[in-house]
């Protein structure tokens, strides 16, 4: 009888905990908890003041994000807008390829929401503005040779090579002069590695064309090209990765 009561009590606690978990998971993050998450995982790069000047920042490039301006590269929102919480969580959960921003998949959804709430306290933008709605991404058309060929022409027409280089390896004539909004030198992406900071799918590449990367020289092309053209360009960029289907030669190599 006593054992039954103990088991019942344990089960009740478990149910309460699970219920509490489900309810809390739907809520916004708690900045007070987020401060502790930040201290445990983020401080060494992003700094105590959220200024991107933690003890490790001086040794690495690109520099850690300075949160005080509310300016973020990886967004689903239009150029200039704040990112959504989901955008920030994606960056924290998956990390940023090729940088020192690791994946924080293991800390869980709750911790990510909490630390986002704390990060938002570093900039008044979060009090004064709301993120714009995410851009609409139309269904992806066929990723075929015709689309890739069109994308290659757009790459030339839009002068992408000015920064990314004729060989698309991030070595264009302007590549050594570029700086971000904080005055830090910034390198254009090498598009031939098969991995992108924004994510590896054509959809991720499409999103970057249309949203731009706030705080960097990478603009939004939303007002310059149609969604169809953006998909062609995304397919071409995606196809430059090693081992990809229909992998073409970059323009300058193809010309030789």
């Amino acid at each position: 009888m006593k054992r039954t009561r103990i088991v019942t009590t344990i089960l009740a606690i478990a149910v309460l905990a699970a219920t509490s978990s489900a309810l809390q998971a739907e809520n916004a993050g708690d900045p007070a908890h987020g401060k502790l998450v930040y201290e445990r995982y983020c401080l060494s790069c992003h700094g105590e003041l959220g200024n991107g000047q933690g003890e490790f920042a001086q040794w690495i490039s690109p520099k850690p994000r300075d949160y005080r301006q509310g300016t973020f590269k990886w967004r689903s929102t239009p150029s200039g807008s704040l990112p959504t919480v989901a955008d920030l969580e994606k960056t924290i959960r998956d990390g940023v390829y090729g940088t020192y921003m690791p994946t924080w998949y293991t800390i869980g959804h709750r911790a990510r929401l909490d630390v986002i709430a704390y990060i938002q306290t570093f900039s008044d933008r979060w009090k004064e503005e709301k993120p714009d709605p995410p851009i609409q991404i139309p269904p992806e058309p066929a990723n075929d040779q015709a689309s890739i060929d069109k994308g290659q022409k757009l790459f030339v027409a839009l002068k992408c090579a000015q920064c990314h280089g004729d060989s698309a390896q991030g070595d264009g004539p302007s590549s050594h002069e570029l700086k971000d909004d904080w005055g830090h030198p910034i390198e254009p992406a090498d598009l031939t590695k098969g991995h992108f900071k924004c994510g590896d799918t054509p959809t991720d590449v499409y999103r970057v064309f249309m949203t731009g990367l706030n705080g960097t020289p990478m603009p939004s092309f939303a007002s310059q090209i149609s969604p169809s053209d953006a998909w062609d360009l995304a397919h071409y960029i995606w196809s430059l990765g090693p081992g990809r289907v229909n992998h073409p030669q970059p323009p300058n190599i193809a010309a030789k």
Partner: protein
Amino acid sequence: MRTLRAWLLSLAAVAGFVLLSAPPAQAFPAFARRTGLRCTACHELWPVFDDTGRAFRDNGYQMRLGKDNPTENPFSYWPVAIRITPNYEYDTVNNQETDQGKKTFKNGGIADGAMDLLIGGNLNNNVSYLVVPTGYASDGVVNLESFWVYFTRVIKNSDWFNIRIGKHEVDLPVSAHRSISLINPYLIYGYHPMADNDAAGAFALDENQRGIEFMGHDRGSLTRYSVSIFNANDSPGSRGAWDSRGYYAHFQKYWQLDSYSVSEVEVGGFLSSAEYPTSFYTADGEPIDGTGTNLKSSERWGLETSATFGPKWTPFHVWAVWAQGKDDKALYGEDARDGKWNGGFLQLLWVPPTDGLHWGFFGRYDYIRNSQQPLAGTPKSLNDQDQWTIGMKHTFAFFNRDEYALHVEYSTNKMKGMAFDGSDLTVSSTFIGIDFAF
């Protein structure tokens, strides 16, 4: 004769406690220097892993974001770290036989320090390694505690197929080499009922084993398995094609609950068998190593659970592990029975949400209960043990270069009937040290 044997057993127990009770512990600032992360990112309270640290280790010391290949590491990065803990230790042991009667021995002083030299990193993408010479105390002895190479994503780029080759710690429910306690071993990992035969007391789960580990895990290492096949530690060997086989299997499943009240729950289980020879060719009556036959096994199996109360970033983490052990009667000599016992431990670790995570508190209760003594006429409860440990750690400073902390710990272990006259033997230790790694 009975008195002499009991006294020798008592002496061996004390010596074993004092000499072997500080398993080399691992915390690796070289990884902090490489990744830019502080120790708190991978350790609840160093050296105890959190989920991130466990995943980092299972992934072969890789973040998998294009920076793992050695050519991508910072030029100044050097994959070497050192950990050492200068400390004062005060020990007491009661019920000691002297010409002046039964006495309690007490002694203390700055302990002879042992150092962990931790060398580890990546040889290539998906190829990592660890080499750990440890010792360097005034006796000059250096033991190669670990040496292994670990291939990850061996088949179809899957995290479920990884292979480690070399001397490694088997995947224990709670790592003995990353124990928060610096003076007490987990009793269940190395316990054997009392015997006169060395072979009966050889197998220890917390000894690193030479062999191959197959392990796999999901993203985040929340579901994971490990199977090790090895030559059992400290075996004099056999004439078999594969000397003194040992097997170990472990499974763990974690559930992240995204709750502040209970943030994570885990269950798991393990089983192991290690074989030792019981017959030998002899020279001048002494067994010749490598000529053993008639392998007999020491077997262990157990269950585990753990729960993290409160948020994971300021955890109140509770582990409970229960195990049973059986040593074949042949390991104990003629006319012996199988040695059987059960035991376990309950461990607590708390990092309060104050003062920038600089404080940590821990405690542990270990027990051993013998259920069948191998030697006839031995009281069933001989060497039943109750071990209590309590301690705190105050980390003065966290950097991604080093970490140093005040470590204070007290432990006491009561071993039933183990004094020279059959009374209980109690060994207690107080430890105050500066634990640092760089």
